[in-house]
């Protein structure tokens, strides 16, 4: 029983972490920017999800539509990426340290933006996942909502894979990531690709935030707490690699669930000791490529 709960908790946090880090990897892979704002957009999606669902129920919407409403709220909230990209664009030609700092400036601004809109008190949704009840399979029972989120995240992973590997636009994205100057020479509008990728990355983050919210509170600590977990995933998996995001998220998800059960308090330490160990053995992560 305990192991099943642990497994599910691990997969659930892995599913959410994957969404956010997939966004980080996409942006890094194409734009070579490590986006610290990912934590802030994640929290933005969470708060936005709470408000959107409250509004929806107030208008007489059925709570059974929790998951689709949150998904949609996440997608809408993710459009904030347009604004961030528009400002970030100014420093594309600059040293990457400045680009990183620019995203840190957004972290600071978002912190107060969230506080201004939603206040300093954490926001919770109440016991909503229970509307979905619990399902039993293989002699175990677990909350349907959590299982649905795991499935949802898997579907998004598949769609992402199909988009990048199989569609013409995906080919263009990969070409831009591989060699930007050459892609431009062949007529690719890299400005639009940058915009597309950044907004897509931001949508992945806000969807992750919106989906997690029925199980936890939206708070102002969310952005900085998520960033340290997401960074761990990215470093373990390898910067810029989607497969790395998937495996990294699973590893960190399990570490998190294990240490929360057996050694609370050292959760982050356990995760980061693995991070350092991976870096010592494989400096560019499990699936990363060395960057010249």
């Amino acid at each position, binding site marked *: 029983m305990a192991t099943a709960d642990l497994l599910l908790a691990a997969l659930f946090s892995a599913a959410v972490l994957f969404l956010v880090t997939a966004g980080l990897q996409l942006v890094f892979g194409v734009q070579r920017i*490590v986006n*610290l704002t990912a934590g802030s957009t994640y929290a933005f999606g969470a708060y936005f999800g709470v408000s959107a669902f409250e509004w929806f129920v107030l208008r007489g919407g059925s709570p059974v539509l929790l998951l689709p409403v949150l998904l949609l709220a996440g997608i809408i909230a993710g459009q904030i990426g347009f604004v961030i990209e528009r*400002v970030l664009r*100014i*420093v594309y030609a*600059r040293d*990457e*340290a*400045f680009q*990183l*700092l*620019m995203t*840190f*400036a*957004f*972290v*600071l*601004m*978002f*912190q*107060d*933006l969230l*506080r*201004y809109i939603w206040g300093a008190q954490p926001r919770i949704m109440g016991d909503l996942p229970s509307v979905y009840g619990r399902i039993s399979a293989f002699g175990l029972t677990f909350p349907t909502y959590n299982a649905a989120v795991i499935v949802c995240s898997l579907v998004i992973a598949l769609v992402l894979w199909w988009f990048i590997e199989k569609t013409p636009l995906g080919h263009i994205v990969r070409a831009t990531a591989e060699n930007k100057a050459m892609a431009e020479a062949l007529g690719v509008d890299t400005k639009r690709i940058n915009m597309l990728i950044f907004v897509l990355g931001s949508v992945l983050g806000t969807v992750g935030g919106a989906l997690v919210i029925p199980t936890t509170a939206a708070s102002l600590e969310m952005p*900085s707490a998520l*960033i*340290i977990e997401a*960074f*761990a995933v*990215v*470093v373990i998996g390898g*910067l810029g690699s989607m497969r790395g995001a998937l495996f990294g998220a699973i590893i960190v998800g399990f570490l998190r669930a294990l240490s929360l059960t057996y050694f609370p*308090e*050292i*959760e*982050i*330490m356990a995760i*980061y*000791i693995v*991070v*350092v160990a991976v*870096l*010592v053995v494989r*400096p*560019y992560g499990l699936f990363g490529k060395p*960057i010249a």
Partner: protein
Amino acid sequence: MNRLILIGAFVATTLIIPFVVSPYYATLVITIFAYSIALLGLNLLFGYGGLLSLGHAMFMAMGAYSVGLLGTKFGVRSFEVQLLVAVASSGAAAALIGLLCVRYTTIFFSMLTLAFGMIFHSFLFKFYELTGGETGISVLRPTLLGMPFAKLSKTAFLIGPFYWYVLALFLGMFALMALMVNSPYGLALQAMRDNPRKTEFLGVPILKVRYVAFVISAIYCAIGGAIMAVSIGAADPELAFWTQSGNIVFILVLGGLGQLFGPLVGSVAFTMLQDVLMANTQYWRFALGALLALIIIFAPLGLVGLLVRAFGKRR
């Protein structure tokens, strides 16, 4: 010549500050010195060495906890001994962590330093018997050169003897840094930042150059953190959180990256600005974030760069 006049004017200002401004602002000046000393080190690493650390708050916290722990747990009240322990512990930690970190540059360096910073942060949380966990530890007033100054109130101590002590410390460390960045070592570091491969071909051991900058920057940060702890009167794990590392980088960029006076100008501007903003609005982080964005876009060399430009035009 100009630089000498500037330094003269600065020293003169610091000499009269305790006598003309209110005690509250005089204590703010101690915060400014604390940040300045830490940033002198960070400037060596990031400004002159091009290595952006997102973990240096860890070393400031080591300095702060050295002072706190020695005072409360071990009964060592001498600030000189506390500083020595801060230097030794941060230096040793940096010497160990640095072995791994300096093998990387750019974003990998930033992420690795962030990783170590977070490990230290959770260490402070976990070992609460020693570190007081989440609430941290209180920092007792240290003795300066063996003198306890027991009769003075906290403010009187801070703006009196402690002020002069910190001022002397700052001037010494500033002079040391000025010598260092203009020495052959400093030039090698800057050459490494601008073109590592070429610098290596010229026979500069670039890993060693980075390693030294890493250790020295950590020691400067620890001394800054030690001063900060005495002025606040407490040390808690938040000092080591990654956003704090981001903040000190912000202050450096605000002042002027790779500018000798950048740390000082940045600390003055940041401390004053934060004081004004926090008194007037609870949304001061937004203002600081917007300011950081503006500085990055319009003034890559920070306030020092702006001042130099304005000064140059007038002549």
